[in-house]
């Protein structure tokens, strides 16, 4: 390989003029102002962005709608210990009433009539 004689020779070799651009290059360069901004890639990207924005808005609206329609859970009775129940007069009354009712029901039950008659006739 032959070398340039010195650094200046290297520089001029580096600056050497490139041949004339091809006709295809010149034509493409002339057409840039007419084609810029209408490339397929740009259109696709902007469409995709628009679709994504609509989809995101729909999902957000659905979430807000579902949230407003959501039925609040019914409050359930909390579990109470036996000791707490025993200390509550209202609950005691309720249980007493319940026992009285059960007794009344058993007295009125026809199936128990025979036993009732037997005990009532006992001396």
């Amino acid at each position, binding site marked *: 390989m032959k070398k340039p004689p010195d650094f200046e020779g290297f520089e001029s*070799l580096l*600056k050497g003029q490139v041949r004339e651009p091809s006709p295809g290059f010149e034509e493409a360069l002339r057409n840039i102002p007419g084609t810029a901004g209408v490339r397929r890639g740009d259109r696709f990207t902007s469409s995709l962005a628009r679709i994504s924005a609509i989809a995101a808005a729909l999902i957000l609206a659905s979430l807000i709608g579902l949230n407003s329609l959501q039925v609040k859970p019914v409050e359930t009775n909390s579990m109470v210990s036996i000791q707490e129940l025993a200390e509550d007069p209202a609950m005691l009354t309720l249980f007493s009433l319940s026992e009285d009712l059960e007794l009344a029901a058993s007295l009125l039950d026809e199936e128990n009539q025979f036993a009732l008659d037997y005990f009532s006739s006992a001396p």
Partner: protein
Amino acid sequence: MVVDDETTDEELMLSLASGDDQAFHQLFERWKRPLISYFFRSLNDYHRAEDLALMVASKVYSARHKYKVLSKFSTWMFQIAQNLLRDEFRKMQTRKSQMFVPDFDYGDSLIEDDSQSIAEMEEWLMYTIRNLKQQERSLILLVYQQGFTPAEAAEVLGIKANYARVLLHKIRTYLTEEFKTA
């Protein structure tokens, strides 16, 4: 806008931004050859060099409304070129292919005008440049081919000006040694 040789690149760019497409043609009438030359020396592929020069032109046109005169137009444009070149090198690293297409016309600019000698020197130049790292190659092309100052070249490459000067000194030393070697 009346365009003449005195009109600066920055004025043409501002004119383009205001809707004068003729300014675009004027601008790239000036810059198409330097751009092709830069890409060609970086890639050793003339057709790819033309493609990349067109991509730079297209990006400049698309970004015409964003352009602000903060630095020289050429610095801004070569930053775009450098980004494209980085992408190209990334692709080339995967392809691992390089072409050698000596397509230069030197006229009287060289000491010897014998076509055989020029072809041989061209081969030497390609061999020497290929041994440089990508950043070093871009730096030497920007400074010695495009006429950028080291500070302007550093701005294009995104490195500090002092580092660019050190790098240039290192490259010059390397090339001087290469000249001495038989």
